[in-house]
């Protein structure tokens, strides 16, 4: 069986590097991994996503609908955009950050009764899928780790908290060390630990987790 993670966010959030860290950890651990990545035109503040699949029988670079074990969203709106890929009762690692696109803001300007979409509405809709959601304050945790740019390591920690995620923690940590600038290694590892704890706290009631 393959383990499927759908990652999404907004262009510029570092999805490609995040994917590459997990992929390299797979290569080290002798696991088969395949991804389907979408960027390029979508890089300019557009919506970006990566299909990541781990396992011997993961063939297609695209995850079939309703087959992702985890939906990892670096931005809240984007999680709702790709929900059809998530299994029923799957896991959502949701960054509590919203980046409002200019098209939404310009609507608020022309229609003074219109409002921005709120994170509570997004979470409620995601929950009705149904899904097990860990709301991750990634930027706060990254800052706590000493570097606001370590949000992605927070999320790698989150993934490692999930017992069914098939990549060994050691391999992920090793890949992080190789991928990030030398002087930020400690901050990234600290962000990893904080992320792991946050996901554990958010998910452990309903999902088997690793401490």
């Amino acid at each position, binding site marked *: 069986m393959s383990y499927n993670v759908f990652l999404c966010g907004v262009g510029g959030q570092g999805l490609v590097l995040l994917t590459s860290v997990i992929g390299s950890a797979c290569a080290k651990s002798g696991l088969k*991994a395949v991804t389907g990545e979408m960027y390029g*035109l979508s890089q300019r503040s557009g919506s970006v996503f990566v299909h990541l699949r781990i396992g011997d029988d993961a*063939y*297609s670079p*695209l995850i079939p*609908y309703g087959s992702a074990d985890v939906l990892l969203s670096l931005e809240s709106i984007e999680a709702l955009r790709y929900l059809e890929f998530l299994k029923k009762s799957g896991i959502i690692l949701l960054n509590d950050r919203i980046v409002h696109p200019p098209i939404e803001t310009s609507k608020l300007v022309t229609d003074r009764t219109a409002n*921005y979409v709120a994170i509570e509405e997004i979470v409620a*809709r995601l929950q009705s899928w149904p899904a097990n959601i860990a709301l991750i304050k990634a930027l706060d945790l990254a800052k706590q780790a000493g570097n606001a740019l370590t949000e992605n390591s927070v999320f790698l920690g989150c993934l490692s908290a999930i017992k069914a995620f098939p990549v060994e923690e050691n391999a992920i940590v090793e890949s992080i060390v190789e991928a990030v600038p030398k002087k930020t290694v400690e901050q990234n590892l600290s962000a990893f630990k904080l992320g792991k704890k946050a996901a554990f706290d958010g998910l452990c009631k309903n999902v088997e987790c690793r401490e």
Partner: protein
Amino acid sequence: MVLENLVLQENKKVFLLCNEAIVRGALEADVKVVAFYPGAPASEILDTFSEAAGSFDYRMEISTNEKVALEVCAGASFAGLRSLTAMKSVGTNVAADTLFTLGYTGVQGGLVMIIADDPHAHSSQTEQDGRFFAPASYIPMLEPATPQEAKDMTKKAFEISEKFRVPVIIRTVTRVNHQSGVVQLDRMERKPFARVKWVDVKQRFYTLGEIARQNKLKMLERTAALRAEFEQSNFNVVTEVGADVGIVTSSVSYLYVLEALKMLNQVSKVNLLKIGTSYPLPEKTVASFIQKLKKVIVVEELSPFLEKEVYVIAKKVKPDLEIFGKLSGVFSEAWEYNPNIVAKALASVLSLPSPQFEEFIDEARKLRTIIPDRFPTFCAGCPHRATFVALNQAFRIQKAKGKSHFFASDIGCYSMWVFPPIAEPDSSLCMGASVGLANGLSYSIEERPVAVVGDSTFYHAAIPAIIDAVHNGNKFTLIILDNSVTAMTGQQPNPSTTNLAAGKLGKQVSIESICRAIGLEFVETVDSYDVKNNVDVFSRALEFDGVAAVISRRECALYHDRNKRRKGEPIVPLRVDKEVCKRPYTCMRTFYCPAYELDEDRQPRISQELCDGCSVCAELCPLGSVKRKEAGP
């Protein structure tokens, strides 16, 4: 991390993007000359070669267009060196003249050409199916499905090219180019780069009239020999389980088929033929596969390329074979596939219950009604946005005078003018076409034609159309957006600066000098950020009696900011002074910067993470409420 993997000598397993795997395959094959014009989804091939150039001794250039890039490779190949180029689907149209002729002349050193198609038009103007270039030019074509296969095929393609003295096309699609996977590397054995003496390797590479007629016969013989060779190729994989139903497939569709069979519990219950050598098609392999079947399903994206071949072969060897595909209606010629689309089609032919996935899509669609679209847009600080604001104001001034225009956009970051909330152009075709169109429009419409091209597009394909305009006395306004790099595809250097690939330096080619040399009498250069001045310049350019060129120049903001960060220079964002702002929303209505949002008081707020401090919005604000630093929290 990628570079470390690419230079590895030993037979290790590493995680690579397919485009990186192609580079590794070429390096293992000892490629000596590479040339590219960037284009999605192939750009990372260029970028990876550029990054790795310091570790190897191949010669590399970013060419002015795909035709030149292919000719650079052909020149190296004529001299006996191995060469590689890669281009996006529509880039092949530009290179096609050279490609077709190389089919006749043949080559000497291995010449491999990657054609990266884009089913679904993710980052292209069309979904064109580049496979047809192969039979049309009698040039062999391989189609990989995975990064591993892409590496192996690239390496093998050089051998095929030299054995048959013909270029070899490797045709990919976005879902292959942008697929990553674990790749088993082979040993890397490279010889030092050395020029050759032409007299030592001299051969004849021309084709015309009687020689072309003789070349055609040789080309037909070569194609027959290639077909025979491909009958033995490991890239065609036959899996027979004794079923009377079989599937013929290629490229990424093969992976969707494997996934779909899993979803339908049909693994090892149907016969499979995975084609890797798509042209010339190994007809005997296909014939022997279909002879054992009652039904065959052909799974391929876009045109029924393989499917029609299967019809032709079946007519000879199995006339009563039932063939399912696009012509039978189970598949569409539109858009890319995925495992669910393929599973549904296979289920219909195999009379199995169709796996339900529409309900997932419907349910998710209902839940996402509250979220806004997120179209790609100009980055914070993008000079194109500032140019666009000034140009729109100039258009409004013209409109007040009762004068209108036809606005021809072109290919580059500025293509994003077609996405809301900024939707303005009347046309956008292909590289450089805006200028050609402006020539035709200047004969045909009463209004003023306005053509826009970027710096890279100017060098790539716009210059002949400008010469055409001057020579024929046509009249239009030409706006050249010079942001110093080919920004859309990842900020590759082009002749507008002295930068070359791999961090080397060359000579700048002045856009102004070219325009003046062609004979344009109105050539003015402005700073894209200087909106107030530019409204005036654009207005004059719109009224000029002839071709008026305005070069709007300012470095790409992404590129500029990245360089700043590298040098440790600060990026100082702006803030809105809440005391001063009276919410006229001029910023939002005219500027649409992604760094802007509304705060809880519905006052504009500037994201301190996204703002790059370009200050154009500060200039536009009628109240002067956008300030640096000193403004309140």
